[in-house]
């Protein structure tokens, strides 16, 4: 065989491969449903400079006014974009802001502030092709300041203190204990065993609440050994949350009980939420949160996944300190 015929054979094969790839990509374009924009029910209202940031950097995923670039619509990239947008809309949708109560809107902005402050949003992959979506430090400050400005406790100190005293008096008199413990839709059952567990940390969340985080023995060991990737099955962490009731010493003490938040590690059962079963039991009746078994996939895990990856998706893990101090 001479080298000339060999070269032309290689050329033919190469051309064949290229033609095949082009054809495959063309065919791919017909396999996916294009992303559609559902109706806008109530767009978020915020100051102009805040809106400008959200519209430029977030609306493509977190709204029903998605305006994708031509390259976002080409499969296989379009699959990823579509999945991200649909997931993002489910989690937080600026076009359906009317569906959130006043408190939830403020809560959402604390999430937003954290996502941009720690540079988690817009998603890194998206920024590769949309570099102008990244927020400047000045823009992060605009978001942070706006969030602070809409955060105020609509309950006065005197109401909080009064309610704390009433709640304590009623609770102390209470003799009947719960016979049947409530169960979260995802199967996590409340237990009052945690009251005997060790306290792994304590925290406050802005001016709103103070918390004590308890851990069972498995969780305590995991913290001490930094066994976070993954946490061992059977670890349970319970965060008890109260209002901040000010006192005459210039302190705040736990006021009215707000809720107890459970995180139960079971890598086989809770596969969509990084192995953690989320549950929240609120008020004196410990009413479980959520309507469906998978409520945590759209309402809890994103924040944990984006911000607390280092400690195995758990917040309020004890800080690293010098043990000799």
């Amino acid at each position: 065989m001479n080298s000339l015929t060999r070269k032309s054979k290689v050329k033919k094969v190469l051309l064949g491969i290229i033609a095949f790839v082009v054809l495959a990509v063309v065919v791919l374009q017909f396999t996916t449903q294009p992303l559609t924009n559902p109706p806008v029910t109530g767009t978020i209202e915020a100051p102009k400079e805040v809106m400008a940031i959200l519209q430029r950097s977030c609306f493509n995923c977190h709204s029903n006014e998605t305006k994708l670039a031509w390259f976002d619509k080409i499969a296989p990239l379009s699959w990823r974009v579509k999945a991200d947008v649909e997931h993002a809309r489910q989690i937080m949708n600026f076009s359906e802001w009317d569906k959130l109560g006043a408190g939830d809107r403020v809560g959402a902005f604390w999430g937003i502030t954290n996502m941009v402050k720690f540079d988690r949003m817009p998603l890194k992959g998206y920024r590769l092709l949309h570099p102008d979506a990244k927020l400047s430090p000045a823009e992060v400050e605009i978001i942070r300041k706006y969030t602070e400005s809409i955060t105020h406790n609509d309950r006065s100190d005197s109401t909080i203190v009064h309610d704390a005293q009433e709640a304590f008096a009623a609770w102390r008199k209470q003799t009947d204990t719960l016979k049947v413990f409530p169960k979260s839709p995802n199967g996590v059952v409340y237990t009052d065993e945690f009251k005997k567990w060790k306290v792994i940390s304590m925290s406050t969340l802005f001016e709103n609440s103070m918390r004590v985080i308890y851990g069972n023995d498995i969780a305590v060991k995991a913290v001490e050994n930094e066994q976070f990737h993954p946490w061992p099955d059977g670890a349970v962490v319970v965060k008890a949350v109260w209002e901040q009731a000010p006192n005459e010493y210039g302190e705040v003490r736990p006021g009215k009980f707000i809720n107890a938040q459970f995180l139960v590690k079971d890598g086989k059962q809770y596969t969509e939420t990084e192995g953690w079963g989320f549950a929240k039991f609120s008020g004196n009746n410990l009413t479980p949160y959520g309507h469906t078994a998978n409520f945590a996939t759209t309402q809890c895990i994103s924040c944990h996944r984006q911000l607390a990856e280092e400690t195995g998706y758990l917040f309020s893990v004890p800080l690293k300190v010098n043990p000799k101090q």
Partner: protein
Amino acid sequence: MMKHIIPAFAAIIILASCGKPAGNQLTRIVYDPHGLTLITSSVNKHLQTMSALYGNKEAYAAALAGDGHHVAGESFAFVTWQYHDDPVYYGSSINGELLSVETIHVESDTTYNYQLEKGNAQPVNGTVLNTAQRINYIFGYKPSVMP
């Protein structure tokens, strides 16, 4: 020759500075209350401290009654930490270094044994309390409401 020595030195210096002496290794510590359980907690935003009041069953009962009566066998521990901004969640704070541990053992209805196990008791409203005042202050805590 020099070409190899300089990077070698640099490597040694870098390696050496990475291996911190074991004694100063930062660790995550869960406070061991030696069998006591949490009664309640408090936050002092001026001092940036958080405290936890632990007790045994008898201590818990006395705190719940809150009538100033104490019986032999009550055991309390009042533990205080410095708190910091949460490094992973802006808007939240979390306890950090352990500042002090104070204990009270009730020997009889009128004899209370107060011990400062670690650190110094934090001032209250800017004043450092004497032992009797400190005992009163700690005995003033009510249990947290928990359904």
